Structure formats: structure tokens, C-alpha cells
């Protein structure tokens, strides 16, 4: 019965693993719920502020504002700052590897340009180090449910770097939360705000709703307000992207843990079947040996 003992040991250890993955699944599920409600709540602000920016953008003439870009910058010579948002812990399926893969593709696309990185999350940092990229800052102490006051300094830091560090563009590689089952890694341009992009969406909105241009009064003046609002929106978008990423992380982890639990369950079933078969075979063999012994005696 050596095989039976071995099987019994394996069943026991898999059962223990299943307990752990099941617990992690439940923890991730509750964290995910919180992260999702935070994400949805922040979308209201995001939507509204974007609308305000759009209605303001109609007044943009050839602006000197460095936060807003016109067309026609030389794309091949840009100096880009990339912010990579990943998780601190693993065991979350393809969550980290997907967004990293996207970043690697981005690095290839922009070969020969200066790329500097800010990493949010420990996993991204180690991946970037392995790739030999230049990391200028990394934030590894983001909580599971980040508050605005936690993210605010990061947003400010990025803005500061953009304004003083001579970067032409700031991109954020993050994971967009679509639903509990789908999350898509994305690279979005945070700064500068593209004027043509704004104008395009405005044109669309106008066609759809025949929206009349509103003649706003600006207090204090337009330029001051515009940079203030763009800065606020940039900071808010950093917050939002981190929220989207945490929501994605928790759902990815929940799914990964659910798969692990299911797999463990299947394995337990298979092993139990094998164990029972071995046990039965053992009994049959013993009986036949005994009856054979009896036959030879009598």
C-alpha cells in the first residue's frame, strides 16, 4: 500500500492549498468590490472635468501653454516619461505580465528615444530593472484601496517632472477595468493634452447634440484657469488610472485564485479516484492471495 500512502499525502496537501486559494479568492472578491465602487465613483468626476475642459478648449487659440500641445511636434525626438502601474504582489494571473508586455512593445516602438520610467508597484519595478530601463522613481507603498491623498503627491511629482524635467510627453501604462472578467492593458498619454484630440471630440459632441457654444466668463483669466484645470485633470487622471489598475488587479487575482481552487478540486477528485482504485486493487489482491493460500492448504 505504498502508493496509497503517497496518494493520501498528496490529497491532503492539495486540500490545504485549495483552502488557501479559496481564502485568497474571497479576500480578493471583497477588495475588488471596494475598488470597483471607488473606480465608478471617480468616473463621475473624470467625465465632468473632461466636459469642462472640452468646453474650454473651444477658446484655445495658438496657445503658449506647455500643458496643451498643438499639432506638429517631431515624434521621433521626443523625450518620454513612462509611468508603469503594476501590483505589489503576484498571484494575480496575467495582470502584471500583460501590462509589462505592452510596455516592452512600447519601448521597442520608441527605440532610440530617451525613455525614463516611474514605477508604481513592486512587480513593475523588478521587470523594468530586468529590462535595464532607467527608473527615476518608484512607489511601492500604494494601499489596496488608495485614497486621493495617497496619490496626490505622485500626481504632483509627475507634473513637476513634466514641467521642469524637459519631457515632451508623459505616458501611463495601466490596466483599464472593463468588467470583473475583462481588463485591458493600455498606454495612455497623460500630458500634454492634445488640442486636436479635444477639438475632435468637441466636433463629435456638436454633431450629436447640436450644442451651442457657451460664452463663458473666466475668473481670473483664461490662461491661468486653463493651466490650473489641466493640471487638476492630470492629477485626477493619475488617481483614476491607479484606481482602474487596482480594480483590475483584484479581479485578476480573484479569477486566478478561482481557477486555482477549481483546478485543485479537480485534482483532488482524480487523486481520490486513483486512491480508491489502488485501495480496491490492494484488497482484491489480498483476498485472492488468501484464497489461493487456503486452496493450497486444503
Amino acid at each position, binding site marked *: 500500500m505504498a502508493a496509497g500512502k503517497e496518494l493520501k499525502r498528496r490529497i491532503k496537501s492539495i486540500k490545504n492549498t485549495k483552502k488557501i486559494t479559496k481564502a485568497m479568492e474571497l479576500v480578493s472578491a471583497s477588495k475588488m468590490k471596494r475598488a470597483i465602487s*471607488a473606480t465608478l*465613483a*471617480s468616473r*463621475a*468626476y*473624470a467625465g*465632468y*472635468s473632461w466636459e*469642462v475642459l472640452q*468646453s*474650454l478648449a473651444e477658446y484655445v487659440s495658438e496657445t503658449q501653454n506647455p500643458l496643451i500641445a498643438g499639432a506638429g511636434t517631431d515624434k521621433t525626438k521626443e523625450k518620454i516619461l513612462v509611468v508603469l502601474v503594476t501590483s505589489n504582489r503576484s498571484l494575480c494571473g496575467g495582470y502584471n505580465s500583460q501590462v509589462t508586455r505592452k510596455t516592452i512593445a512600447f519601448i521597442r516602438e520608441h527605440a532610440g528615444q530617451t525613455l525614463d520610467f516611474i514605477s508604481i508597484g513592486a512587480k513593475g519595478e523588478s521587470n523594468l530593472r530586468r529590462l535595464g530601463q532607467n527608473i527615476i522613481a518608484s512607489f511601492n507603498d500604494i494601499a489596496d484601496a488608495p*485614497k*486621493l*491623498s495617497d496619490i*496626490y*503627491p505622485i500626481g*504632483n*511629482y509627475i507634473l513637476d517632472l513634466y514641467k521642469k524635467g524637459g519631457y515632451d510627453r508623459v505616458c501611463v501604462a495601466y490596466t483599464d477595468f472593463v468588467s470583473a472578467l475583462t481588463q485591458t492593458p493600455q498606454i495612455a498619454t497623460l500630458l500634454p493634452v492634445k488640442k486636436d484630440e479635444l477639438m475632435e471630440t468637441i466636433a463629435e459632441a456638436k454633431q450629436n447634440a447640436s450644442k451651442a457654444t*457657451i*460664452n*463663458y*466668463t*473666466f*475668473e*481670473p483669466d483664461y490662461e*491661468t*484657469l486653463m493651466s*490650473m*484645470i489641466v493640471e*487638476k485633470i492630470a492629477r*485626477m487622471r493619475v*488617481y*483614476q488610472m491607479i484606481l482602474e489598475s487596482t480594480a483590475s488587479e483584484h479581479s485578476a487575482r480573484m479569477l486566478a485564485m478561482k481557477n486555482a481552487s477549481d483546478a485543485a478540486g479537480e485534482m483532488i477528485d482524480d487523486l481520490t479516484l486513483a486512491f480508491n482504485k489502488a485501495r480496491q486493487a490492494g484488497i482484491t489482491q489480498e483476498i485472492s492471495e488468501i484464497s489461493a493460500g487456503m486452496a493450497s492448504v486444503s
Partner: protein
Amino acid sequence: MSSNQIKLKIITPEKTVLEEMVDSVTIPTTEGEITILPHHIPLVSGLASGDIVARHGEDVVPMAVSGGFIEVKGVSGVTEVAVLADFAEHVKEISEDAVRAAQARADELKKMKENGEVVDFEHFASELERSLTRVKVADKWRGKKYRI
């Protein structure tokens, strides 16, 4: 829907704090305090720290806010006021304990500033501003009547 009312929305990145029809609203802007009544001209302005006071008949709803911007516009006859604040809190949510904590925090932060210990200045400044606003607004509304 009466056009003699304003649709007021107070939104922070963390949640929508308030969304309702009111008669008038007083807002601290970067250029000074303004009161917005129905049929106000379209306006975009910066938001300063202080208290937003929404009036609805006899009711007064005070909110402590800090940092952000406001947009006023008319949509099919109804004046819409959107306040996009970094932080907004109903005065009732600022308990005595919270005020004391905020005061203590503000004092501590000020001391840190004097000692030159502060590295993370931006974070520090916004936190100080928030603590001070809490204290100021709570002091102002202590003992006054308002709707919860």
C-alpha cells in the same frame, strides 16, 4: 422643474458629494466669494478653500471644500453649477473630535515646516490646507442652524 432653481453638483474624485436642486449657492472662488442665483451667466472659475453654502427655502446646507474649480452654465433654461473640488465634506461630518485632530495635525505640520523637516512639500501643503479649512469651517458653523 422650476427654472427658478439651480442644479447644484458637488463632485470630488472620490465621490459625488451632493446633487440637488437649490435656490442659491454661495461659493468661495479664488477671486472672492460669489453667490450664484438662477440665470447666472456662464462662468468658469477657480475654487478656494472655505465653505459652500447651498440654500433651499429655509434650509441651509454648508459644505467644507478645498481646491478645484467651478463651472456655471445654462442647459435648456436650467442653471447648472458644477463644483469639482479636491475635497468636500458636509459640515455635519466634521465632528468635534475630527476638528481637534485636524487642529493638532495642522499645528504639527506647521512645526515641521518651521523645523525644515518637510520633504514632501506638495502633499504637506494640501494636507495643511485641508486641516485648516476643516477647523475654520467647523468654527464658523458651530452653534448655527443648518440642515443635515
